[in-house]
C-alpha cells in the first residue's frame, strides 16, 4: 500500500495543534522542509522535542508554533545561541516558552523507553548535578542488586515523529546511512511517523540490503519525496551541511524583525520545498554537492532455496 503523499497532505493529516512533535536528526538529516510546512500551516501550541533544537526549532518557535521545548542542547553548533528561543526564554518576548531539559543520553533514553514501552530508562548520569533539581522528572532509582542507585528518565512518546532519510519504498521501509542519531528510537516511540526522503525506491532496493533498513514501513504513516528537504542540514552522500547558512542565521535571528522578514521570504513566501530550492539557486545547490563519490561497496546475502 503506497503511503506516498505531498508534504502538505502529510503535515495536515498527521500534525495537530497541541501535539508533541519530534523532528529528529543529530545535525544530519534534519527535515527543515517539514518544519517549514508546519509553520505555513500555522500549527499552534506544539511541544517540540529534539536533542538539539537547532535552527529548525528556532524558526518554528519564532513563527509561533510552539509553547514548549523538550531538549538537551540548545544552540547553533559551532556558531552560538538560538536567538529567537532565547528571546522567549530570557525576556518572555513575545511570550514565555516552557523548557523541559535533559542531557543527550537522557533524551536518547527517553525515546528508547518510549519505543520499548518501558515505564523508565536507567542511566549513569546526573549524579551530583543540578539537572534533577531543574527537572524533577529526572529521578533516582535503586538497583535491585546491591545498594547502587542510578538515575531514570521517563518515556517520551511523540504524537508524531518526522524523519528524513536517503531513501524509502512507497510503504515507508526506510534506509539511511551516515550519522543515525536517535531517529529509529524516536520513530518507534511515536504514535505517527512521517518519513521524508531524497529518493523513492522500489521495494526490491530495500530488500536487497535488509540490514540497512532503519525504520520499517509498519510504523510509517506518510512517505514524502522531498529532494533537498534537509537543507541547510545535510544528507550523507547527497549534499553537504550549509555552514554558511548556519552562520548567516546568527545575524538574521538576533532581531525579531529580521527573523520575521526571513520567515516571510523563505517560508511563507514559497509554496513548498521545490520553490525554496529554486529560490536557493542552482549555484548554491551545486556548491553543496560532495566533491566525489565514496561508495560503500556491495556485500552478498546469497540465495538460499
Amino acid at each position: 500500500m503506497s503511503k506516498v503523499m505531498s508534504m502538505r497532505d502529510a503535515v495536515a493529516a498527521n500534525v495537530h495543534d497541541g501535539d508533541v512533535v519530534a523532528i529528529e536528526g543529530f545535525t544530519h538529516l534534519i527535515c527543515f522542509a517539514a518544519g517549514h510546512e508546519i509553520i505555513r500551516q500555522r500549527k499552534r501550541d506544539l511541544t517540540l522535542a529534539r536533542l538539539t533544537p537547532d535552527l529548525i526549532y528556532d524558526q518554528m518557535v519564532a513563527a509561533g508554533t510552539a509553547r514548549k521545548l523538550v531538549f538537551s542542547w540548545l544552540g547553533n553548533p559551532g556558531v552560538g545561541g538560538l536567538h529567537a528561543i532565547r528571546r522567549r526564554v530570557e525576556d518572555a518576548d513575545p511570550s514565555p516558552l516552557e523548557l523541559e531539559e535533559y542531557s543527550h543520553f537522557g533524551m536518547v533514553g527517553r525515546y528508547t523507553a518510549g519505543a520499548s514501552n518501558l515505564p523508565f530508562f536507567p542511566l549513569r548520569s546526573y549524579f551530583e548535578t543540578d539537572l534533577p533539581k531543574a527537572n524533577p522528572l529526572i529521578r533516582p532509582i535503586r538497583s535491585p542488586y546491591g545498594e547502587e542507585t542510578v538515575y531514570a528518565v521517563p518515556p517520551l512518546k511523540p504524537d508524531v515523529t518526522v524523519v528524513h532519510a536517503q531513501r524509502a519504498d512507497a510503504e515507508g521501509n526506510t534506509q539511511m546511512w551516515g550519522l543515525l542519531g536517535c531517529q529509529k528510537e524516536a520513530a518507534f516511540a511515536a504514535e505517527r511517523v512521517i518519513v521524508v526522503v531524497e529518493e523513492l525506491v522500489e521495494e526490491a532496493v530495500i530488500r536487497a540490503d535488509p540490514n540497512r533498513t532503519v525504520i520499517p514501513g509498519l510504523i510509517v504513516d506518510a512517505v514524502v519525496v522531498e529532494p533537498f528537504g534537509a537543507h541547510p542540514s545535510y544528507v550523507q552522500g547527497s549534499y553537504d551541511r550549509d555552514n554558511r547558512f548556519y552562520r548567516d542565521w546568527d545575524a538574521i535571528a538576533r532581531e525579531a524583525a529580521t527573523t520575521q522578514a526571513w520567515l516571510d521570504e523563505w517560508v511563507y513566501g514559497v509554496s513548498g520545498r521545490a520553490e525554496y530550492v529554486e529560490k536557493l539557486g542552482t549555484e548554491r545547490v551545486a556548491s553543496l554537492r560532495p566533491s566525489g563519490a565514496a561508495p560503500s561497496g556491495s556485500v552478498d546475502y546469497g540465495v538460499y532455496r
Partner: protein
Amino acid sequence: MSEPRAAGPGGGSAAGVPGAPASAFSKSEMMIVAAARELAGQRVCFVGVGLPNIAVNLARLTVAPTLELVYESGAFGAVPARLPLSIGDPTIVTGATAVVSMFELFSFYLQGGLVDVGFLGAAQIDRFGNINSTVIGDYDHPKTRLPGSGGACEIAINARQVFVIMRQSKRSFVDRIDFRTSPGNLGGAEAAARIRREEGWLGRGPSVVVTDLGIYHFDDSGEMRLDSIHPGATLDQIRDTIGWDPKVAEPLATTHAPTPEELRLIREELDPEGAYTK
C-alpha cells in the same frame, strides 16, 4: 570576539625547544596547541563541539597519531578531511571506522567505559572543576540561557578523565557556578572520591584545564593549580581573570610556544578561515 595576534612581550621556548615568539601567535592558538599536547599518549577521546574539536584534531596530526576520535553524533575512528564546524558533519563519517546510533555511542562506548578522555568546553568553572554550561543567573529566570548539558553531564561522569578547554575571565572562572551541569571534584578531592566510588562512576574527574593564559592540573585537595603559564601571559593577568585566589605551582613552568608546524597545521589545514583562532 577578535583578539590581536601579538599577545605580549617575550615568550618563546621554556626549555630550549624551538617555538615561535609570543608575538607570532594568538592566545587562542596557544590554548589550542597546549590542549592538543595534553592528549599525548591517550587512546580514545570524546570530542565536544567548539574548541575541543580543533584541539583534538590538532593532536591527531601531532602528538597523538593513534588517537581515536569519538563524536557524540555517533562516529568512531573518524578521519575528518577538513575541520568540521559542527560535531555532526559528513566529513567525520566518510572513512570512519564505525558509525553507530547515539544509543550505542552513549551506552556502550561512553557509559561502558571505553572513553579515556572527555574533552569539554564550559561557560563557568569553579576551583574544583565543576562546570556550568546551562544558565547564567537563576535557572527559572536566567540572565543568559546557555546551550545546556548536551552530553557533557554523562561525559564528566563516565569518561575516565576530563579535559577542559576555555578562555579565562572573571565571568567564567568563578567562585561559585550558577548551575552544576557537569560534576568535577565537587567540594574537594576526598569527598569526590568517596562519592564517585559509592555511586559507581567510572570517571576519575577533571585532570586538566587549558586556558588562553595557562595550564592547570588538580592538586591532592582536588583544587585547580596553575602548573604552566603561557609565554606572554603574566601572573597578574592570571589573577585578574580568576574569581578566586588561584594556587600556583612552584616552580611555575612556562608553556612551550607553538612550533611552526603546529601553527602551520592550525592556520593552513585545520582552520584557514580563523573560525576558532580569531
